[in-house]
């Protein structure tokens, strides 16, 4: 076995090895960098882990493919088949801008929640299953710090997913139909830069929904050591909420569903922006974030890590 690099002392110098006198604990090591810098380093590592995973790269590819497929489908369809109506899809033929919006509306129901479900399955259940969770905890990473880092990474990953859909939609729509000033649902016209700004707000609104779903996902991820189980559970919960939300007889339940106010993102295309539904949507998101992050902490803080 090669000898140790002399410049790299693997062990503490003997002075430090001497045990502390009873009752007087040896000084804890001092951080080399500030707490924030150290936390950002962990977050960067977390993001790199998430993005270097082939499956996640493929997932991003699928998210980006949907708007491209939609744009091509509309382009090659017979123009006489185009339905006139209020939907974004029908507006695509006149303005590529609407590819991005139509794709977000389509993907918010299944593809984006599924992406969140996969990432949250990996977050804790995945690390528990392959055993890397115990490695992190004995480094040590404080459990609260790990939970917060995992959550922030999920939110950033969600944002990236939504952004990829919007950008792919703009690119595909721009190439096939061109980007023009946008006619709002209120009948006015928005200059393209203003419309792009509105699109960014839509992206953030959808991200807020996924952030709430991520909190739920992180909680589920603390319950099991089976990442696939956590993923399936989150996908089922999300899909069930979308289904329940379409049943009029359950109107009393709708305000409690996370998904109820999500299609309100179309209100961003009114002039001026119509906020009440989206405000309610954001409050629902926030309630889900608070409840499920607390539940995740309650579960994870004392959990025996024996996997």
């Amino acid at each position: 076995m090669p000898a140790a690099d002399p410049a790299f002392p693997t062990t503490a110098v003997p002075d430090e090895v001497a045990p502390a006198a009873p009752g007087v604990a040896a000084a804890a090591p001092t951080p080399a960098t500030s707490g924030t810098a150290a936390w950002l380093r962990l977050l960067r590592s977390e993001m790199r882990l998430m993005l270097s995973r082939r499956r996640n790269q493929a997932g991003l590819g699928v998210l980006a493919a949907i708007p491209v497929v939609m744009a091509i489908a509309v382009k090659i369809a017979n123009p006489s088949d185009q339905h006139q109506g209020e939907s974004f899809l029908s507006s695509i033929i006149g303005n590529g801008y609407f590819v991005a919006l139509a794709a977000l509306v389509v993907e918010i129901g299944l593809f984006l929640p599924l992406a969140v479900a996969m990432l949250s399955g990996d977050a804790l259940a995945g690390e528990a299953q392959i055993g890397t969770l115990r490695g992190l905890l004995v480094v040590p990473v404080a459990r609260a710090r790990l939970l917060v880092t995992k959550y922030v990474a999920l939110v950033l990953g969600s944002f990236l997913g939504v952004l990829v859909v919007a950008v792919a939609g703009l690119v595909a729509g721009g190439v096939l139909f061109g980007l023009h000033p946008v006619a709002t649902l209120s009948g006015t016209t928005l200059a393209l830069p203003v419309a792009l700004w509105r699109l960014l707000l839509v992206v953030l609104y959808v991200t807020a929904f996924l952030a709430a779903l991520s909190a739920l996902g992180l909680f589920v991820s603390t319950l099991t050591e089976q990442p696939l189980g956590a993923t399936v559970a989150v996908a089922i919960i999300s899909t069930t909420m979308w289904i329940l939300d379409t049943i009029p007889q359950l109107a009393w339940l709708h305000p409690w569903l996370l998904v109820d106010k999500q299609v309100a993102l179309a209100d961003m295309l009114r002039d001026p922006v119509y906020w009440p539904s989206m405000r309610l949507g954001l409050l629902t998101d926030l309630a889900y974030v608070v409840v499920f992050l607390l539940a995740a902490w309650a579960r994870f803080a004392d959990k025996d890590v024996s996997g």
Partner: protein
Amino acid sequence: MTPALATAGLTKRFGSQTAVDGIDLEVPSGAVYGFLGPNGSGKTTTIRMALGLVRPTAGTVTLLGRPMPGDLREVLPRVGALVEGPAFHPYLSGRANLARLDAADRYADPRTARRRIDGALDRVGLLHAATKRYRAYSLGMRQRLGIAAALLVPREMLVLDEPTNGLDPQGTREVRQLIASLGTEGVTIVVSSHLLSEVEQVCTHLGVMRTGRLVAQGRADELRASRQTSVRLATPDVTAAAAVMERLGLTGVTSAGESVTAVLGDVASEHLVATLVGAGVAVRELVVNRARLEDLFIELTGEGFDAGR
């Protein structure tokens, strides 16, 4: 001297099953402590409790003079650990896996990360495979990467759970040499194994677990001395042989059929043979049973290696 690791009445119950049953472990500072016991005897659960991964049902853990898991954030940066075999992300390289653990350490200096990571890889002989994906590592390489993870920063103590599990004899010897060299540098090391022979030579202290209980603990040489060297002689002249042995001062002389057994004590075996022959005793066969820790281990753990569940 404050022990590096001490437990008092440490107990863990999973449902109705008691995995660890009130053990009082004491690992002196600077020791290389062999933590032995058959699979399923509670070693790993004890280690998990010592490192704050699992909460004890009862009892206390004091690690480097501080209570665990209360002072976990102050204590664990001074302890390197490999718990229940290596665990890494299969699609990351060995180096990237270590970089991830280093990034998680709020006390580690990011400016020296590359040098420390490669230093740790070098120390376990994995530098040549640094860019290879963990998935492609052999079991021995995986174990060594696990040890490298414990060596990323200078440590006062190392806890290595089954570091030789699955290694070939060459790999086992390398890990043993690494433990020995770290031990001479003053690092306190707890090394667990279900195979005594793999760690016996490097340990200054031993603790033996059996079905959740600590059945022996102490300095390795003292434990070894507690078992005496015996001798078994095959001869047709049983009575004469027993008389010679008693005259030489051997104890516990017992004869059965055509063999005599006795505890050798301080008597040299060649002196015994010469005296027997000189006294006209026909020596057909003489077997000396040296005090082997292995036998003590089997005695202590009862049924043998993989029993005890």
